[in-house]
């Protein structure tokens, strides 16, 4: 497993644990009403689980497991995979924190966070597609690895 996949999958697992904790607190609050102000994290829960967990896990696994480019086992432009990691996580963090920060610091002061998050998320996914595009190929098109 390449280093970037280790980083992506472990970060995805951290987001899964955090997203589940937030979701669990929200679900419990529906019944026992212990922390009503916590509902500002609802959108963050969705971003953490959909993009931070599911999408990032899929990206990390794809970078690990898709066919290599040549017999030496080259995976192609790894800088694109690292760009995906940085941009995707920047976007997820900004999108997750924007609503709680808006509640604390005021909506005007954090208005930049969601557009920047949107740009980063698109850039991250574009970088991922740029990395994996050439690796989506039929079986047998890469010569056997010489060891």
């Amino acid at each position, binding site marked *: *497993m390449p280093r970037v996949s280790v980083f992506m999958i472990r970060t995805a697992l951290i987001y899964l644990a955090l997203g*589940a904790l937030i979701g669990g607190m929200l*679900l*419990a609050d529906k*019944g026992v009403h212990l922390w009503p102000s916590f509902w500002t994290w609802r959108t963050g829960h969705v971003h953490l689980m959909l993009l931070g967990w*599911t999408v990032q896990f899929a990206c990390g696994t794809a970078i690990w497991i898709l066919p290599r480019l040549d017999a030496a086992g080259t995976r192609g432009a790894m800088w694109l995979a690292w760009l995906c990691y940085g941009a995707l996580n920047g976007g997820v963090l900004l999108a997750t924190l924007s609503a709680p920060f808006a509640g604390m610091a005021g909506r005007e002061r954090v208005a930049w966070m969601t557009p920047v998050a949107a740009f980063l998320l698109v850039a991250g996914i574009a970088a991922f597609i740029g990395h994996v595009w050439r690796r989506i190929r039929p079986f047998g098109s890469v010569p056997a690895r010489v060891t």
Partner: protein
Amino acid sequence: MHRQARVYVKTAFVQLLVSVIVGALLLINAGMPLHPRLGLLLPVYYHLLMVGWATQLIGGVALWMFPVLSRDRPRGNERLGWIAYGALNGGLLLRAVAEPMHAMTPRPWSAWTLAVAALLQVCAVWLLVIALWPRVRGRPDMNRSRMGGG
């Protein structure tokens, strides 16, 4: 594919079937009203799909395919995966029953059932993360009684 992974993946497919049936009822209800309170199933539908199907399927495949830890215990402590499985599906089932009922008529038993469902699902996810974490790694050193990976 070992038994634990098969159980995870097959349960994920059952949850997928149940979630699309609930989703279909919600869609029909939107165009051709069947029952005014059917819309209360919307959060149950989302969570059956994203936790019961997607997360459970990913967990099962990861427990199967991720690099093994050692020759003696290739998948680490499998008990963690089984407890996570029970807690995840038990928590989801409790949620699917209690959430719409509590939204219709809040009662102490449904309120505490929601809290228990939340606790079970959080514990399940954390146990799954603990089970998978050591198996997310680069190619192990074959000279140190390790195997697999890559």
